[in-house]
């Protein structure tokens, strides 16, 4: 696998697209393995970090559980539904962190000028900066989270259509998350004045730990249409519960395509205006 990364000879009968995909999978595999090794070199840190993530999850879970138990129905949602909203938020959050963790280190590369090394390699700088390595810590939290989603989800008795739409909207949420992350990368190239853009994104998405119906207008509208964290985290869960709002569904798929297109344009524009810190 690794050898294929360094060769320009594609096996006979394979297309260019196939070779390209294989090459990028190789790059991703090699860099992810390296990230695994780095993370595991500090086992105590991994354990403490995981414990922190689990505590954060459990505390908020407990908090929501106590609140919805005591109030019977929060904004018309049952305890199981409120918990499912929270689990769906976590699912999108954990998967996007797992895939796009490299974005968190991007600013340091720009400030130190080491991004030049990324640019000089025969790999797309966007691929390297966005999907450069998988985060093992998030990967470890994913299986128990998936089990919880299934266990709680089964109690909501979704129809087959709801289930399919839920999965499609989760995929859509990841596309929106990718668009956000690409925009953060582009902003990192354009300005070094902000060092926690990605954390602002995290705080914005954290508002969807509860259904966005909890927020008053204009905040609810902003979270649905302007910064579509509601589309990412609340809409899939609502659809799973059989609450279909067709215009919102249509908007969900439109905003992901438009967002991805706009963030890619922003990225390529930023790249053209990149001036190396080391030159």
């Amino acid at each position, binding site marked *: 696998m690794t050898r294929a990364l360094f060769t320009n000879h594609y096996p006979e009968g394979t297309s260019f697209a196939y070779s390209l995909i294989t090459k990028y999978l190789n790059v991703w595999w090699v860099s992810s393995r390296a990230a695994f090794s780095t993370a595991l070199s500090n086992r105590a840190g991994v354990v403490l970090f995981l414990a922190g993530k689990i505590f954060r999850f459990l505390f908020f879970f407990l908090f929501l559980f106590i609140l919805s138990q005591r109030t019977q129905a*929060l904004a018309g949602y049952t305890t199981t539904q409120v918990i499912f909203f929270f689990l769906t938020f976590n699912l999108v959050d954990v998967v996007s962190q797992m895939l796009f963790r490299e974005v968190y280190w991007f600013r340091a590369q720009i400030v130190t000028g080491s991004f030049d090394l990324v640019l000089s390699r025969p790999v797309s700088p966007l691929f390297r900066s966005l999907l450069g390595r998988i985060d093992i810590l998030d990967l470890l939290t994913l299986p128990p989270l998936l089990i919880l989603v299934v266990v709680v989800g089964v109690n909501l008795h979704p129809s087959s259509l709801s289930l399919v739409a839920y999965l499609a909207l989760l995929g859509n949420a990841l596309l929106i998350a990718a668009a956000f992350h690409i925009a953060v990368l582009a902003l990192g190239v354009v300005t070094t004045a902000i*060092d926690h853009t990605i954390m602002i994104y995290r705080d914005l998405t954290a508002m969807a*730990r*509860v259904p966005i119906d909890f927020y008053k207008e204009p905040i609810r509208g902003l979270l649905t249409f302007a910064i579509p964290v509601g589309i990412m985290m609340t809409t899939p869960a609502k659809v799973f519960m059989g609450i279909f709002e067709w215009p919102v569904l249509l908007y969900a798929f439109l905003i992901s395509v438009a967002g991805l297109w706009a963030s890619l344009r922003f990225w390529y524009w930023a790249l053209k205006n990149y001036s190396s810190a080391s030159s």
Partner: protein
Amino acid sequence: MLLDSLRKYYQVFVVSISEMFVWKLNFVLWRVRVVLQLLLLYFLWSTVFLQQEVVFGYERAQILTYIISVAFLRSFVLSSRSVDVAGEIRDGELTNFLLRPLSYIGWWWARDAADKVLNIAFALVELSLLWFLFRPPLILQPNIVLVLAALAASLIALILYFYFSFLLSMAAFWVAEAWGIRFLATMTLEFLAGGFFPLDILSAPVFRALQLTPFPYMLFFPAKIYLGQLGVGEVLTGFGVLISWTVFFVWAVQAVWMRGLRTYGAEGR
């Protein structure tokens, strides 16, 4: 002599303020993050009170006052730049400070003071703006003694958190990557200090156990004093525990600092 010494730290304070204004946008966006966190809690609790007037023994005005006063307390009690101490130990930058005629802990106190002044100023503006936008029913405590007691508890809590945070950072003397300890502490502290909800909504045994730890005294205790929901006995006991923990952490920092310096290898320098 004392005045000269204080002047040094005053200069650190002034430079720290100027430094923060160099990265204006960064600071403003940091405050945006704080507001987003507050909005989540504000609307969550507002939703809880849509159907009921009293939840967990709290009325709407009481819980919203609690959430907002905790947000204000957080801006100066739980804001400490001593998080960066771990990095300075790990990268060997601590050496630069050891060679200077000043106390390293004093240096961080001065930097923290600058941070807290700005945070308080911004928090006041943000909370006023939120009040203007949403007009939540808030309780203005008419009893000046309670206000002063809450203020005193907040100031002691501030000292407690500074030394607690400093102690965590000093793990870097022994562990290369101290971020794991910091992350775990940060994740648990917000909840255990009462940052998300008043801790007395938990079951009585859990709440009693928590009261033995230093965490509830950082946010929950001062907020409860302000709300006037604690009896004289509870306030005095609370102050006793708060001061005991503060003294313990001050002592622990001094002890660990001396031990840490013995193991400090100035790696990276």
